[in-house]
């Protein structure tokens, strides 16, 4: 019984230590270089330009 408890405590300790794992990936700074997340766009820039130009004509015309 005592042996079983010992094994159990070792397993519990191992599991609890595993939970303490910390991701150590760091972003190394390099001057003038953006290393953040990539900004995905659903449309190409030409498509977007055309859509937004049309929108401007619809909502921001002079009165």
């Amino acid at each position: 019984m005592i042996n079983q408890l010992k094994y159990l405590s070792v397993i519990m300790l191992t599991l609890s230590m595993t939970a303490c794992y910390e991701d150590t990936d760091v972003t190394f700074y390099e001057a003038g270089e953006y290393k953040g997340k990539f900004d995905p766009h659903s449309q190409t820039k030409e498509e977007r330009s055309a859509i937004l130009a049309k929108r401007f004509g619809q909502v921001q015309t002079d009165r």
Partner: protein
Amino acid sequence: MARMKFLCDSERCIECNACVTACKNENEVPWGINRRRVVTLDDGLQSEKSISVACMHCTDAPCQAVCPVDCFYTTDDGVVLHDKDMCIGCGYCFYACPFGAPQYSQEGAFGARGKMDKCTFCAGGPEEDHSHEELDKYGRNRLAEGKLPLCAEMCSTKSLLAGDGDIVSELFRNRVVRREGRGESWGWETAYND
């Protein structure tokens, strides 16, 4: 290629602050932060002028130049955005910006300076379009919906313009020509014949 720009026509701005309200509501901007403000010069005098100011999405952005962790980037549309996961809230961009655009939310029990927040030209940020993360961190992504910033779209006098710089400047040039150097039809001269 389009370069998105704001332009505020001071002859038309009536200081209604609708742009400020629209921005706060659309982007769910936290309490104490204004991404856009209306600045009035010579308040109450005949020469009174108001302009609506936010991040101007500079072509050679000083905030981008001074950021010690380089968390800024410029999109294909010319919109200056930043990654809040990289921002350390140092405040250098606030000192560098000539328009006072960067804002800092109070975070934590002692109100420490949080991550920088600024106008995104309603273009969201570096998260998946229309995701919860994007809305929480940066606000609405209206550009991905084919719309322009709400502050400009709902400006009642069409004072605040937002869009491709070439189209905006063409529209403004036509206005200036039409005015022939005079102010718009309303104003002190009309109201008081002074």
